[in-house]
């Protein structure tokens, strides 16, 4: 029958400390959506094929559907819910650029795209088009043909650089 053994896990989600109990088979995806209600984490497949479940684990993008929850003990997890910025309506530059550049149609891949872009811009504030494509290549988009997304990340990089110069 079902293995009901519970494991205690502590981690930081979007700046808030969380203590939860999970089962050994629970993925971070299950935990984030079912237990913690961060619904911006989406699901497109079940095993690391589409990337729309991406979250940031200590600043690096990971597929939450492949990450066992017990493994994130002591880590910092970021989802789109945690992203705040200084642009209009408390948006981050990346969010602002995605909104104004028509970088989303159905919007289902958008949370993952924005998080992957954030991870890129934190380590490389001035990326080339190829570097952007590399960084976003783990996430699929079926609507836009990707071009507006790449343009949005270029624009966000510029906005962020301007902010830091001031």
């Amino acid at each position, binding site marked *: 029958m079902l293995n009901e053994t519970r494991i205690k896990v502590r981690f930081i989600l979007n700046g808030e400390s969380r203590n939860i109990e999970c089962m050994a088979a629970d993925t971070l995806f299950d935990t984030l959506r079912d237990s913690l209600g961060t619904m911006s984490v989406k699901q497109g497949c079940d095993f690391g*094929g*589409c990337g729309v479940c991406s979250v940031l684990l200590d600043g690096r993008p990971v597929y939450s559907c492949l990450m066992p929850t017990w493994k994130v003990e002591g880590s910092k997890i970021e989802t*789109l819910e945690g992203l705040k910025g200084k642009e209009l309506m408390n948006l981050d530059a990346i969010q602002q650029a995605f*909104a104004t550049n028509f970088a989303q149609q*159905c*919007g289902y891949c958008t949370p993952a795209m924005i998080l992957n872009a954030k991870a890129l811009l934190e380590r490389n504030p001035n990326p080339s088009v190829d570097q952007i494509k590399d960084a976003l290549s783990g996430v699929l988009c079926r609507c*836009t043909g990707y071009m507006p997304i790449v343009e949005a990340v270029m624009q966000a990089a510029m906005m962020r650089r301007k902010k830091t110069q001031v």
Partner: protein
Amino acid sequence: MSSTSQEQNLLFKEKTLVGVPLQKVDSILKVTGKALYTKDVRLPDMLHAKIKRCPYPHARILSIDTSKAEQIPGVRAIVTGKDFPVQQNEDTPAVAFSEALYANQAVVAVAADQRRTSELALEMIFVEYEPLPWVTDPEIAMTPGKTPTKIVHPSETWYEDPNVGRHIKIRKGDASASFKECDRVIEEKYTTGMVSHFQLEPVTFVAQPDPDGGVSVWATSSGPHKTQYELSRYLGMDADKIRAKVPFLGGWFGSKEECHVAAICAKLALKADRPVKLELSREETLTATGQRHPSVITVKDGINKGGKIVARQIRAIFNGGAYSSLGNNVVINAVLGAVSVYDIPNFHMDCYRVYTNEQPGTPMRGPIGFQIAWAIECQMERIANELGMDPVEFRLKNVLKEGSENAIGELMESISHDKVLEQVTSAMKLNGQGKSSIPQDSTQENKWVRGRGVALSAKWAPGGSPHQAMVRVKESGKVEVWVDVVENGQGIYTGITQIVASEFGIPSTDILLMPLVFGSDSSMSGLSGGASASRQLVNLGNAVLEASSNAKKLMAERASKKLGVPSHDLDVREGRVFSKTDFRRSLKISELFLRAPIVGYRTVASFTEGVEFVGYGTFYFRQGKLDPETGMTIGGRISPFYMSTAQIAEVSVNVETGQVRVEKIVAAADVGVAINPDLAKGQIVGSVCMAMGAATSEELVFKDGKIINANLADYEIPSIFDVPLVIPILVENPLQNGPFGAKSAGEPSMFPTAPAIRNAIHDALGIWVNDLPITSERVLEALQKLREN
């Protein structure tokens, strides 16, 4: 025009948002992760459902034993075929009743407290099958004496051949007699494979029993009313007791019309008397829900000396899978696709939708037309090449002209076939066909050979699919828009907002689009056909314009007394009711409202005397029929208008590996008037990239009657590295009865991409590939053939 009215026109100059690249009204919700999809719906005490599926492509169900599963704690409901009224129609049953007709068809469904419990219960359900003969090849399935199985549906219209669910024919002139007199006759066979929409959000439903014995269903559907009425048939329940809601859709493209899956979810919820969520996995979405119809299309053309096609005969076979789903009706698209571009005096066509033991074929972005455009545009290139004619010149010589009649008797109006071709050719020149050749030595530099190819198509927008709208003007001058409209990414929320804002001359922020707040809901507004067949913007756009105009009339009547001006002389714009002949006589909208205290006299609220300023509107184009013998239209057009589209593709082909790299595509499309040019361009670019996937890599592959590549590792959709540079060109040829002249943009650009790529590959290497997808293997095979000759 008098000088006063000219002055007024200046003063009340149209403040319109038509043609403005307004930021999507749902963009902030989407970039902050607040946009909720059906998959995100969570209700208190919600159960999770799973489906047990048939492992055979065709089998008789001998017995189902659920007794063990029923005893598992946490299992709340189990449904089998017996729980549904027996479907006396050709539709996909919710759950197989006595026979399963395709691999992975649903046989039993379970709802339990937890997903894991449902999964466990499936393992404790025992089904005994008797495997039966099956067929997946439509050409075998429709040949008398050859087919191993006859797929019988109770109330089917049977045609002369076995397993033919629909046969449509067009007989114009005498094609076979003309062939004898032609200078040249060219016949080729073209095929396309089963392609998936691969919308990123898998098929999901949530159902909740309502207090009145009805049921509310959250659906990944293109229209809440479609779900409502279809569910009513599946459940045998009064449609008025079914409330269908569609939140944001995580991609659509024609998929998700899976009301048979919704019926399972609703039945489980009613049986358990608790909310139920049914989430199909990616594999289930690929193997057990509808995909694009595979096709086999033969085109035979007779051409005279001057390069004019005088006769064309088409035999088009579509693999429809085990049930009609919506498929038997969409076969008419084969006709519309075949008659929409070229002017051919003798035209014969036979289109078949054939039942096989595969999952039912369903519409996908430019359904059936995509396959027809592939065949015809490959054929056009072949002919031009054999005649030694320039491919653009050859097409222009045969194209339908404005005001001419197509092969089913529709007048071609507001078309731009010449214009779109001209636009793409001036943006990117063709190499000149037959110029390139395979390099003799395969050094690093010339392993990759470049070529360019062209294709021309036109998309229709059939009549039918009524849309209704309601608008309510508030004291603040803001306008509520109550419509059932489904935002699947195309930007329709924004388009409708721009149309209403333009009609009232107010900013987009003064439009309260109710579906943006609540999602689309069948109980919230009048009938809407939802998104489909390039109609939503035109039909709903016209409906909201009529609704706006009716609301304005009510305001004018109310203002007429106060201003002492006849109501027909009054108009409403920019928050004011004013006289069209004397603009100084005007009122603020708020002056038409009364105020009264509510909440213990503390708060004052506004209201109107008598009816509110609410206007209703309905729009659809009436649709004629095809004569069953000649295929000529009876009682009106099938498609009220057509949208021209042309593309030129530039590709690189690796002569050693056969790999095709699509470098650049110039895509022109006639959108009528672009309500929002950036959204229209987004539709063109998105279509091209999706069609490129179907052209070069995507196919669901069957082995032993089952799909063997139902995952993202083996079924490859374009990644960020695969997409070409796409240059969209908007051609604006206004549609007289479109909202502000708009046509549609969501589907047309799907058509020319695949043939343009194939024609470019020919330009590069001199090879002809007639089968989709154009995989490396197929390129190498064609190269091998060329070298041998």
